[in-house]
């Protein structure tokens, strides 16, 4: 008796064929369409202005100073055990990299003549500049600056 009442998926589909599959798909399709429509409208309403959403727009003023270089340094004081999977560290770095392309930014490497700084405060920036004996070329405030090393 128990065997008779055992759930058998293929039996259900067998006796109701072909309508079960078509109806299931159609109902789910309708629900999905509503869900997708809602998602798309929400995304569209939340969209940013095209000019403002340009990745790394804050770094763009540095570009004119770096025209002659193919690789410069990039420094951030964001502490992370693995910076490559750190969302905060990578977000800013990749935005800078996109905006300053085709200049490549060597992550946390201070051995370049020009270094793009993106640190948490002006105080940290000043300390680090003194430590590596560099001079600021352009300070964009909020810890973002382009510096040049004296001894390079």
């Amino acid at each position, binding site marked *: 008796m128990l065997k008779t009442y055992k759930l058998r998926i293929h039996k259900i589909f067998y006796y109701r064929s072909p309508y079960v599959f078509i109806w299931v798909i159609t109902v789910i399709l309708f629900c999905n369409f509503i869900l997708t429509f809602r998602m798309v409208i929400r995304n569209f309403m939340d969209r940013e202005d095209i000019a403002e959403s340009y990745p790394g727009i804050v770094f763009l003023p540095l570009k004119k100073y770096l025209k002659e270089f193919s690789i410069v340094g990039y420094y951030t004081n964001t502490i992370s055990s693995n910076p*490559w999977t750190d969302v905060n560290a990578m977000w800013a770095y990749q935005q800078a990299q*996109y905006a300053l392309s085709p200049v490549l930014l060597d992550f946390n490497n201070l051995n370049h003549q020009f270094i793009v700084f993106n640190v948490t405060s002006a105080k940290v920036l000043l300390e680090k500049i003194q430590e590596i004996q560099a001079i600021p070329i352009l300070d964009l405030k909020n810890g973002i600056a382009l510096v040049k090393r004296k001894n390079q």
Partner: protein
Amino acid sequence: MIYLIPFLLSFFIGYLIITLLRKETSFNDPLSVFLGMGLGIGVSSQIIFYVLVLCNGLNVFVVISVHFILLFFLFALRMFRRKRTIIPQASLNKITIVRFCILFSPFILLLIFNAFSRPYGDWDAWSLWNFRANFLFRAQEHWRELFYYGLQGNHPWLLPFSIVWGWSFIGYEHFMIPIMFSIILTISTVGILIYGLNQYIDSKKSILAGFFLLSIPFFIQYSTSQYADIVVTYYLLASIICLLRTMRTTLRSEAFLTGIFLGLLGFSKDHGILLAFLLLMLFLIYLINNRLFFRLGSFLFLGILVAMPSVVFVKILMSSNKHDLVYKFNLFNILILNRWSFILKYVLKDLLFNFYWGGIWTIFVVALLAYRKYFLREFIIPFVCMIIFLGLILLGYVISQFDVNWCLSTTWDRILFQVSPLAVFIMFHLFHAFDSAISIRKSE
């Protein structure tokens, strides 16, 4: 409209190649249109690659000239052959294409709206793919430096090269090119799904399959994110459809076309390389078992060779990347049971309870269980390929050195997105096979 022209040029090149290859057989025209789109984009990306290597930087004049010369050459070849061919060429079935456009217009509108919500795409789109494209477009003779010092992400470059082609044609960088690229490839994916299925099942059911795929929220979201996953999705399905045609017709031209699509699949992303390798191995086993290896094998490999140099070149150059971190594995992680259980819980929860997948995976599993007896022999290759691929990806999560939660949350849904049209393809074929069997039984 100007943003469409480079893709139209690519399309004509791809379509002409397909019509030239398939001259021996009658073919389903709309399927060739959608296959031609992807093939043309692949050819354009290969042209960009060869121009970069041979001219040591991007030479826009050479790129555009090569496209026009190739188009002229293919057109002339087609005209020349047309006069001599005995089998009449099928003309474009405009009604079917028009019907496709009308039926799918609400979904295409949703795609367009969603794409314009994020003109520069999601994170990986601008930070990896579009960044590579704009670097190649601006860097001139320094373009190789990106391979040594660029950001991590050891993937092949079909997507950036295709974007560079679009920018080269219009003469400047514009966000419309990546948007157009993603929309065109998404529509082509749905097109090849419908007309690929239409070779096995009736048109109403295959159109329902297209509707179902396009109604999935994650499909719309990821296809317009400007990631390379849509490239893998398209070339995977295109390779499988060509592979199934090769198995059915045993034509050399089909084997060559399958090879080209497998090569382009390998050029799309690392996941594409894995998928192409798995498909190739399974197909070779099939060919050897059916004593077709000597007839089709060489043409298959010849097709693969079209894209192979670019894949090998990019992978060799990138192997010296100082920021490469993709393949950092720890085999001892296999012994950590907590890692396994966390991954399995995450995956099952995502497959069964994530509403943004629109129930596709639940229906897929139910359809497999219900209709397993009706599985056509030739569909075993794509199904086994999909299962092995997902299994290897899960194994990759287990042995990865990175935080497993980070790995899963950033990549798992994109992996599922890559195989979702294939799942719909298998699901609808199974249903049709079952339906046909029942109809035959009833008539008896």
